[in-house]
């Protein structure tokens, strides 16, 4: 694109892009267009005939209390995960940025939850919070909380939020630490000479300077909470009890594979697709790559 010199055109470039393009067409574009097409169809109860219904599937969805609740729940869930995980990562990074010795050791100890699969993270947390055996319900009993995420929807929601946020701390920490370490020391020193204490320096200088990173992480965490947490929810609660932890992705899976409602599931896929496209556009349009000083 920006190169001034090129190789002469032949069939070669077509051969080179062929594998990528073929896979994209077969496994991405074709299925996606199928999803869009199916979202306009309604199958009768016996699967014998299908009818083209334009936007009726979408209309049904948006009149469905259950779907609207799921939508709302997904937003609450994502916001909680993002705030909890970015907040703790920000605090930890701010302190790690201060320590002279051991900053890399702390980083090493902090980053590896990134490598743990979401479903494993779910398994770990479900074990820690197992109502009869887990260590946390045991402790919570002393302060009079009867923890049971199999029965209590709020408990179940809290548990998936913890597991999801825990896994994402590593990622947020890395990016926050890198952003803080790239702030010129002279700037912070100047603030210190002017009499700004550590807390003041953090809020007035460091935090505004890393705001592009915050914004970037906000988008990444939202995408993570929307899509990558499927494994956590599938392992921990399977959307229950009584749908209290069913988020959009889980509902697509459940309605499509378990409920076999093709049109409805496809319509939900299309809505998700629109959400991803919106997030990707935001990520590329508004997220500045570099911090400007």
């Amino acid at each position, binding site marked *: *694109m*920006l*190169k001034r*010199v090129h*190789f002469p*055109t032949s069939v*070669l*470039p*077509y051969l*080179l*892009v062929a*594998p*990528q*393009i073929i*896979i*994209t067409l077969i*496994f991405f574009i*074709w*299925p*996606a267009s*199928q*999803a869009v097409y199916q979202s306009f169809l309604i199958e009768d109860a016996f699967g014998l005939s299908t009818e083209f219904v334009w936007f009726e599937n979408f209309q049904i969805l948006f009149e469905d209390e259950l779907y609207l609740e799921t939508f709302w729940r997904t937003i609450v869930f994502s916001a909680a995960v993002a705030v909890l995980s970015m907040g*703790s990562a920000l605090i930890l990074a701010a*302190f*790690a940025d*201060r*320590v002279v010795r051991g900053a890399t050791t702390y*980083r*090493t100890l*902090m*980053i590896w939850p990134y*490598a*743990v*699969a979401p479903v*494993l993270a779910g398994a*770990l947390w479900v*074990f*820690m919070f197992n109502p009869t*055996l*887990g*260590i946390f319900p045991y402790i919570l009993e002393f302060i009079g909380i009867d923890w049971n995420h199999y029965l209590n929807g709020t408990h179940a929601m809290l548990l998936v939020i913890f597991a999801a946020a*825990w896994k994402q701390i590593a990622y947020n920490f890395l990016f926050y630490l890198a952003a803080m370490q790239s702030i010129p*020391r002279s700037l*912070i020193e100047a603030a*210190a000479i002017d009499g700004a204490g*550590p807390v003041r320096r953090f809020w007035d200088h460091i935090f505004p300077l890393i705001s592009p990173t915050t914004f*970037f992480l906000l988008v*990444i965490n939202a995408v993570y909470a929307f899509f990558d947490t*499927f*494994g956590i929810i*599938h*392992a921990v609660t399977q959307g229950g009890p009584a749908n209290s932890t069913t988020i959009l992705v889980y509902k697509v899976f459940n309605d*499509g594979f378990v409920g076999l409602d093709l049109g409805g599931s*496809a319509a939900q*896929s*299309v809505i*998700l*697709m629109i959400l*991803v496209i919106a997030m*990707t556009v935001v990520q590329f349009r508004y997220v500045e790559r570099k911090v400007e000083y």
Partner: protein
Amino acid sequence: MVENRRILGIISHIVLILGVIMVALPIWITFVASTHDAVRMTQAPIPMLPGSHFIENFKQTLFGAGLSGSEGAPVWRMLLNSLAMALMIAFGKIAISLLSAFAIVYFKFPFRMGFFWMIFITLMLPVEVRILPTFEVVANLGMLNSYWGLSIPLIASATATFMFRQVFLTIPDEMLESARIDGAGPLRFFWDILIPLSRTNIAALFVILFIYGWNQYLWPLLITTDTDMTTIVMSIKQMLEAAEQSPQWNIIMMTALLAMIPPVFVVVGMQRLFVQGLTETDK
């Protein structure tokens, strides 16, 4: 550090150590659970210090039947499946992205931008939004329950292509000119100059993609029905279900430990490449 404040230094360390404990606690409990026998793991409160049954559990999990009473594949088989899937995804993504980035950067050909946008679109279509139709395509191609089915549909990658495009763009044009004067054709140039120059980028990307591949869950869950094709990450969920009837937490947690060791090892062992890969692919 700007000024020397002893107390603040100490507070920093305390906060960080608390942070590390918070991050490490689930893994510690997993490890501890994998070192006790099944009977101890049914008594509340569960132990917080390691026991003496680690080797025993390790053997039973890896080579024995694993969870007694389950008809699943042995754990070593699942580990192999995961490894095959992760490697195929990582190498596949790197290979096809290198080729397409090379074509897009170094050739001017009709529809170049069209191809570029087509690759870009894949970014907006994660598996989760096209589950059913993609499953149908794979089923029609007869790729269910095979390594091909596990890996190929996941190897188209916009991020990797973008990253290699950026890398190639930073390579000075003079390289290409001098290579052409010396009579090197495109493939020669690709193999002898571009690949060696982007070696660290490839390694960094490999680290990220290996973890991505190893940790896949939804996709293998959909397309493998044959227990011989189960991946280790998938098996955890089945064990959790079995745990509701017969809790054998020592074995379950040992399996969880085995499932997370390879990717954790990669992240910690190749930390520099990992950090580089993470910051490069996501920006």
